[in-house]
């Protein structure tokens, strides 16, 4: 094979077949992986959950993962947030002409490894090559289905006053790792992305605590955005305790230099879980049993006051609103 992806790799001819065999089948293969027009698998019992997500990340590789790993985690975690066990994924690659084949292999390899770790099978894929400059490196879209095994009823609209709010680990590491990898601000720090598949811990929580109200994947908008979404959807208020929010010291240092709020930095391996307060300890205990969620902490509670707002108890005992989400993250000096 050549070193670089060319337009002919996307033409559907023998070069495409070669690429599929040498890169994708080699790394993603399983009994359902198909070269036919569609994959055929046994239908699971019960309800299924289905989700899709597109991934563009620059740079494509960062400490703690790459876009291949990310594209599996994202969809697996979305499915798990509905209490479903992820079963099958499809993937669609749009690759920029000139992309290094060795890099593509690295990405496919990470995708395969992450899928096996998450217990999900990649059953079908598609490859398109776009002309130079039409995409930034490569874009990946994954779609997936999972089966709901336990009688659960989860939704961002189900948070109730009195519930406890849990995050499954320190926040903002993915966003911080990407920011550092882009090297726009000359800052160095040892920060690894939190990118990880979380189906196992999520399913453990819902199977042992069927009364769980909400599980949400805190991705690009960070934990702060998820909390605001839950406030809106559930018509409740949220109170979090500033000193209880887990933030890695290096992330704290980087955000301190740039004047950014860690609650709005992206995560790719952190869930926000809301349970009735009597299950708070048990939830933490379950999550502690998994490496990816061993840093789980209660950060606050749902209230029936100041509906639609996230309020933060501050280090001096005052109360303040968390600024609403949606602002572009720009470093500030003042």
């Amino acid at each position, binding site marked *: 094979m050549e070193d670089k992806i060319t337009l002919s790799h996307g033409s559907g001819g023998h070069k495409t077949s070669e690429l599929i065999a040498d890169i994708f089948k080699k790394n993603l293969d399983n009994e359902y992986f198909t070269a036919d027009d569609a994959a055929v698998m046994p239908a699971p019992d019960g309800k299924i959950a289905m989700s899709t997500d597109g991934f563009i990340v620059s740079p494509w590789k960062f400490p703690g993962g790459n876009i291949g790993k990310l594209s599996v985690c994202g969809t697996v975690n979305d499915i798990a947030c509905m209490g479903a066990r992820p079963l099958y994924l499809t993937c669609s690659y749009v690759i920029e002409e000139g992309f290094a084949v060795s890099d593509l292999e690295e990405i496919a390899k990470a995708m395969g490894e992450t899928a096996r770790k998450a217990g999900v099978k990649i059953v079908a894929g598609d490859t398109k090559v776009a002309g130079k400059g039409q995409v930034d490196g490569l874009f990946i879209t994954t779609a997936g289905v999972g089966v709901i095994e336990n009688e659960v009823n989860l939704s961002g609209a189900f948070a109730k006053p009195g519930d406890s709010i849990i995050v499954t680990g320190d926040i903002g590491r993915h966003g911080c790792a990407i920011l550092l990898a882009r090297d*726009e*601000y*000359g*800052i160095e720090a040892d920060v690894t992305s939190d990118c990880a598949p979380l189906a196992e811990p999520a399913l453990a929580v819902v199977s042992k605590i069927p009364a769980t109200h909400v599980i949400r994947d805190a991705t690009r908008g960070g934990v702060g955005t998820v909390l605001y979404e839950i406030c809106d959807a559930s018509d409740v208020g949220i109170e979090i305790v500033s000193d209880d929010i887990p933030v890695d010291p290096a992330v704290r240092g980087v955000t301190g*230099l*740039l*004047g950014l709020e860690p609650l709005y930095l992206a995560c790719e391996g952190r869930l926000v879980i809301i349970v009735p307060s009597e299950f708070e300890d048990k939830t933490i205990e379950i999550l502690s049993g998994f490496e990816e969620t061993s840093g789980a902490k209660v950060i606050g509670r749902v209230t029936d006051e*100041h509906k639609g707002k996230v*309020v*933060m*108890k*501050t*280090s*001096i*005992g*005052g*109360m*303040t*609103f968390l*600024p*609403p989400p*949606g*602002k*572009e993250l*720009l*470093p*500030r*000096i*003042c």
Partner: protein
Amino acid sequence: MNEAATILKSYEGPKIRIMEVCGTHTHEIFKLGIRQILSPDIELISGPGCPVCVTSADYIDEACWLAREKGCVITTFGDLVKVPGIKSSMIKERGQGADINVVYSPQDAVLAAGKDPDREYVFLSVGFETTTPSDVIAVKYAKEKGIKNFSILTANKTMPRAYEVLADSTDCYLYPGHVHAITGTADCKAMLAKGTSGVIAGFTGPELLTALAVAVKKCQEGEPFLVNCYPRVVKDEGSPAAMRLVNEFMEPCDALWRGIGVIPMSGMKLRDEFSEFDARVKFAIPDMKEEYKTPCRCGEVLQGKIKPFECPMFGKACIPDHPVGACMVSDEGACSAYYMYGGLTGNGR
């Protein structure tokens, strides 16, 4: 810290008005929820200490003109990107293809210029005494290294004249710690000599509570006072090296403060011998001064005459996503901070 909090909670007596003149103070006071613990007899006024907010609208238009008409790469602190000018804003220009690059420091801007000699780089030099030395360091570097494609668009400002203009609006200044880390305590002493009280304050919870409590205690004693509550950073002499550097490259000039008007000799510009680094001279920017008409009552907000929520535009036509007035622009602008963090007790206190 508990002692300080108790004083601030339990104060009863004549109303004490304390004006913070630093946007970061405003920001931290809201972020820490300090207003919630203050006695109703203590009033905090957010003065004009946000360099982004007091930067005049025509300055933004000058920057947009450089990007659009001269093809300059504009390098800027993130705070300025969203600020509306009269005709445009950098976020609009960026959408139309202009190169607007956010940098962490002015030195990063001059380094970027050095690596890309075929394009003109302009750094938007805003800020008070704390930031101006960094701007000058960048110019000095460009001069020493012969980087010809770098210049700065100055809107640097200094605080002392503003202290004088606003002295009647407050019983006590909460002086900006990082300004006085550079300039020392002389300006505050000069204000004291004229009968204006103040405390120099840091930025963390304990520092702010302590400085406010000292202000309240001292106000009760009735004599004008000045207490440096940030001695771990602010020394009497400030940073002589920084002041020497700034005075070598820059000189005072009149400055237009958005919402307040012209305050004589409250700005800084490059001296004539460094005009090759002055974007206004280098690119012969046409005069963009135009009366900026807005129903916003920014001027009164910045001078502490009204609270943000007393402005008819506040929270309605003017919100952080589409700011109309200056004080809604930056996160630390008085109105933006009120909008995002205020309202916990209903009246925005």
